[in-house]
């Protein structure tokens, strides 16, 4: 059978003959590779635990970003109440960025959760396969020690070797996947920690200045909308009202949140 299936068969069969060529004592080789499989399964389990840890870290970041969104929203409201439109605009811009970031994190967390489930499923499958390999190896060991016809033993060894190679292949894929997922989660975490997402003026990968300007245009109009909405909610939309309020409340606003002026 050519093509896909032929190739897959060749891949596994090559692994089998490599395994068996090296084997001086088939019984010992089988026991050893069973032990190896059990050990590797532990690695898969550890890999899943790592993915879970990475996911939890991202979830913590989500929580802190959510708090930041609430805080910035409160600050924007305070600023509008005090008639400080520029300040409100800055707060809303930052809120916008935090929300976008939050959406990105959310996608990552959902994806990690999805992968975690898949990996847990394949871990269970692997466990069953290892158990089936154990049964097969005991059968073949019994045959070997009974010193039956050499041909039959080598045939059986090829059969069990195939299973051995296949478990090995499945295990390798599972380990690769956990490592992949963890690396991706770590990369997001590092970007967050480095504050890459905080720098409004930074150019992202593959972005040029036009991209940035277009982006800032659309985010500007989003901020304009937010600001108009906030002003409507707080009933300070009437012309002149902001100025009067601002003049009267300036001192109070400054005392209400001194950190805001510095950070702005």
């Amino acid at each position, binding site marked *: *059978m050519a*093509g*896909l*299936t032929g*190739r*897959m*068969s*060749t*891949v*596994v*069969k*090559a692994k089998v003959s490599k395994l068996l060529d090296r084997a001086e004592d088939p019984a010992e080789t089988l026991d050893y590779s069973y032990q190896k499989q059990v050990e590797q399964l532990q690695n898969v389990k550890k890999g899943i635990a790592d993915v879970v840890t990475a996911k939890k870290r991202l979830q913590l970041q989500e929580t802190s970003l959510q708090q930041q969104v609430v805080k910035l929203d409160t600050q924007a409201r305070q600023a509008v109440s005090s008639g400080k439109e520029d300040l409100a605009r800055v707060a809303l811009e930052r809120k916008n960025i935090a929300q976008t970031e939050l959406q990105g994190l959310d996608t990552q967390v959902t994806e990690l959760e999805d992968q975690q489930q*898949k990996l847990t499923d*394949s871990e269970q*499958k692997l466990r069953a*396969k290892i*158990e*089936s390999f154990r*049964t*097969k190896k005991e*059968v*073949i060991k019994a045959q070997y020690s009974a010193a039956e016809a050499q041909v039959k033993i080598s*045939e*059986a060894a*090829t*059969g*069990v070797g*195939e299973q051995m190679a*296949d478990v090995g*292949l*499945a295990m390798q*894929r599972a380990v690769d996947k956990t490592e992949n997922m963890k690396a991706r989660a770590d990369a997001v975490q590092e970007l967050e920690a480095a504050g890459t997402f905080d720098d409004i003026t930074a150019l992202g990968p593959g972005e040029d200045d036009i991209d940035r300007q277009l982006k800032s245009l659309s985010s500007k109009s989003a901020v304009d909308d937010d600001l108009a909405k906030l002003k409507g909610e707080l009933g300070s939309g009437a012309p002149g009202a902001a100025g009067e309020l601002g003049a009267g409340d300036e001192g109070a606003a400054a005392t209400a949140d001194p950190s805001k002026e510095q950070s702005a």
Partner: protein
Amino acid sequence: MIVRISGEDQFRLEDNLHDQLDRLAGTAHAAVDADDESAFSRSLAELLGFVRANGTRVDDEEIETSDVILPPSDTTLAEARTEFTGEGLIPD
């Protein structure tokens, strides 16, 4: 004929299903050549489903060498191309 689904089990299939199996595998292989991810996952699922539906699982105590080994169910197009078909682990 004994067919192994890599990462799963071995199945015993009637020899006269060989042609049908070959056709389904051919469709999956064509999807790899056409670089069509969704056609590939669809045809791979169909191929493996055919084996599961028409075969009987080989018992753990039985030791058989497979006549055909199929890729695992979660094989991606990229894996199929680099590992299981083209210049993968074993060059042509």
